């Protein structure tokens, strides 16, 4: 080996260079250090952002925010059937957990649903309006009600309160996917 390699300054230079490269690598990986510097409330927010906000309660919590809070305390991430695999995947990415399937104890993931009121049978009792957590049902006492399809989450919380069973849960229409077809 050459004497230059044994030179202290040479070694120091190479070391600095090496440390610089490693630091740069780590830093690009963690450019979002700032993103982590947050109070515990925002951890809940970050989790809540990934939940589908159907407020259906299938996870056993009263809405998505309480479930997010529970996840931040260490609860399993696979209790959200409406979100399905997509939500679990995103949560797993966020929290560095293993990708998993939906816990069947909390229901099965299904295609997006929509509540539909058979308007001829509706008696205008407003019970479903009170039950709807996202205000997606329109109507007034003793007048026919209807579901605002764009706002409905398909959570089926309105089905049980209906005294005349005039609410159906139907499949939400899927948007036309043109490019996603196999070529």
């Amino acid at each position, binding site marked *: 080996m050459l004497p230059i390699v044994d030179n202290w300054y040479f070694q120091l230079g190479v070391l600095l260079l090496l440390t610089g490269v490693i630091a740069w690598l780590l830093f690009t990986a963690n450019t979002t250090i700032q993103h982590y510097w947050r109070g515990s409330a925002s951890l809940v927010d970050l989790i809540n952002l990934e939940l*589908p906000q159907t407020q259906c309660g299938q996870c056993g919590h009263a809405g*998505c925010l309480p479930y997010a809070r529970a996840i931040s305390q260490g609860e399993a991430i696979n209790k959200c059937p409406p979100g399905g695999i997509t939500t679990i995947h995103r949560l797993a990415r966020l929290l560095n957990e293993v990708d998993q399937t939906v816990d069947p104890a909390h229901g099965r993931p299904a295609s997006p649903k929509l509540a539909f009121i058979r308007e001829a049978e509706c008696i205008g009792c407003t019970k479903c309006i009170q039950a709807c957590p996202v205000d997606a049902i329109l109507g007034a006492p003793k007048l026919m009600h209807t579901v605002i399809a764009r706002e409905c989450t398909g959570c089926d919380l309105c089905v*049980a309160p209906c005294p005349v069973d005039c609410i159906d849960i139907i499949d939400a229409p899927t948007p036309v996917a043109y490019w996603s077809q196999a*070529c």
Partner: protein
Amino acid sequence: MLSHRVRRSLKFGGITPPSNKAATLRSRIMPMPLPARLLLPLQQYREQPAQPCVNVGDRVLKYQLIARGTGASGLNLHAPSSGTITAIDLEVDFFIKGRTQTAIELQTDGEDSALPLSGMEEIEAFEAEQIITCVEEAGVCGMGGAGFPSATKLRACLNQEMEYLLINAAECEPYISCDEALLRERASTVVRGAEVIQRACQARQVKIVIESDKADAIAALREALQASTITLCLVSPRYPAGEERQLLRAATGIEISREQLPTDVNCLVFNAGTAAAIYAAVIEGRPCISRIVSLSGAPLQTPKNFEALIGTPISHLLALCGIDERVHVDTFIGGSMMGMYLPATSLPICKTTNSVVATDNVQFPLPDNELACIRCGYCADACPENLLPQQLLQFSRSRAFEQATDHGLDDCIECGACAYVCPSKIPLVHYYRAAKEEIAAETANKRQGEQRKQRFQYWQYRRKLQQEARQQERADTGKTASLAETNAEEPFSREKARADIAAAVARVKQKREKKD
């Protein structure tokens, strides 16, 4: 003055596919015999469709307004010829199956009787606002393919100090030659059009950007530009030189990102065809009822450029070129790189249709089976956006959308250069489009989730208010209600509710019976 430096058209990548324009350019721009039927889609741009202002059975004259644009960037539609309206709400499967559009149908009478036209001869006497109104009335939109309403574009830069106005004549895609033909034969209209736009937007410099291999068009332009302040800017012929942002960089050196518009850096880019249409609209007062369309492809005996009326069925034009149906397989509009296959040739020419290509089995053989990606990186060398298509492909195919977005999938302009050079014959752009579609759906879902969250929070807030109000009320009246009643979150009992309702229904029935 005559010697021009040829600028490098692309900073990164690009390809030089065979241009396939010579056959079409052999003949001059031809007028077109009137078709018996014109089909005018109301939605020429992505915005809201125009509102028809004629009724079925009305007789309309050429140049007459038949649908008025709505919304901020609406586009007026004029009758391209005289005749009778036979339908105003025809549903047409337009380019993409399942996405229908409404169209007006016009039965031509062959007389072609027109409304009188009045244009402004001296543009110096007019204000920018007047010119823009004129353009808006004429329903001019971008003729290059995107079809953005020109008046909206001009109006957006009214209060801005514009540096550059670029006229895009760099028709880089194979098979498209309408702008080249236009410049070759009517260079002065493009130049006058550019002057009109300059008058409207007050740009300091005007450049006509053209690929250096279009010799005839450049010669014609030089002649037309002799007494003008407008300069000519030659760029090397390379695909996709005509893309707006690439063109902007080649002509001015300014790079903008995918999210930005040229107006953000005080530049304005218009297509040569648009400039000619604006000239016609302002100087001659003629609304946008026709455009130049190049027809090409091996099945055509005499490929040529037509001055085609908007709404002409494509099959009419194909027949005029002597199409050989025995070898004709498919038809697409646009160039061979970014074009779109047509579901049927009965579809009409739109304001954005610059080219129609009939394909055969020789020039457009069925795609080979795609092989595995060997990450050779030829696509990265060809990408004008300097992306890594091989990485994007892997991410798109295995649905790793976060990584795809991270690697700049949104910056992909879908020019198809990567798929062109791919040794494994992978249709990369197809995968990108599929991934983009799914990402868009996911984003929409997330936005919806956000909305739902807000509504839910408001609902919770309202419930809390109600509860508080009720408690307040109770405290005021001093009543001590039973525990079951005060509890607002009383568990819902189906039986009880049913009994209540049954009682109510019985009461109503009784009332009715009493009445009877």
